[in-house]
């Protein structure tokens, strides 16, 4: 009967949404809640940087609290963006090769964006701490 000598559960396991289906949904909501606060904070930071010169703007982000919140904002932003773009591609791109290519491209770009931003914040936060003042 079973040419592959596998039990039905072995064949079914890992397919469909069993057990892990809600994970994507939950992380999308958790990052959304995080971005509610962090997004408002980010707009406020940008507004307060408008009239600052370079040194003042840099030392604003270098403040430990702002640096930590900026790191949190970056991680939540790119994680949420990746999850959302993934769903949009799943819904509208029906050609398998193109869909796979787009999904991988979006994941790579989101990771690179997050990594580059995190590195920048670390450079800002560490360079000015002992030397600047």
């Amino acid at each position, binding site marked *: 009967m079973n040419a592959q000598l596998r039990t039905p559960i072995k064949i079914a396991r890992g397919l469909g949404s069993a057990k892990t289906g809600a994970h994507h949904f939950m992380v999308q*909501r958790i990052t*959304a*809640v995080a*971005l*509610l606060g962090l*997004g*408002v904070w980010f*707009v406020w930071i940008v*507004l*307060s940087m*408008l*009239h600052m010169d*370079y*040194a003042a*703007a*840099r030392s604003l*982000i270098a403040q430990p609290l702002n640096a930590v919140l*900026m790191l949190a904002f*970056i991680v939540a*932003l*790119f994680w949420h*963006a990746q999850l*959302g*773009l993934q769903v*949009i591609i799943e819904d509208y791109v*029906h*050609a*398998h090769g193109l869909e796979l290519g787009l999904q991988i491209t979006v994941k790579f770009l989101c990771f690179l*964006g997050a990594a*580059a*931003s995190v*590195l*920048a*914040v670390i*450079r*800002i936060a560490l*360079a000015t701490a002992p030397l600047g003042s």
Partner: protein
Amino acid sequence: MPDTARPLSPHLTIYRWQIQMMTSIVHRGTGIFLALGSALVVWGLFALASGPDAFASVRAFCESWIGLILLLGWTWSLAFHLLNGVRHLLQDIGLGYEPRQFVRNGWLVTIGSFVLTALVWAAALAQRGGA
């Protein structure tokens, strides 16, 4: 384009227009646009880490006509996506599903997004004027 030839629902051609169609597709549209805007966040932070010259070129881009139009678009997109996101979170815990409420808070989110955009830009202009 689809690999499969299965029939698709013809819903878009037979339903009369409703506010929830707009909020749904605009939520996705603003999401894509905001994801593109994350490039400016990366560029801005990189410039801030690099030095005054790089920071000046980001500022010059933001103050150009294209930059200002994009920033206005990103402000409104963030306002809409944020407010409609709250609406989605409330729907996720079972609130606001009554048809009248559903339509009303769709309009609230839409109008609120323009009000929020106006407030942020008023604050920005006041900053520039005061400095």
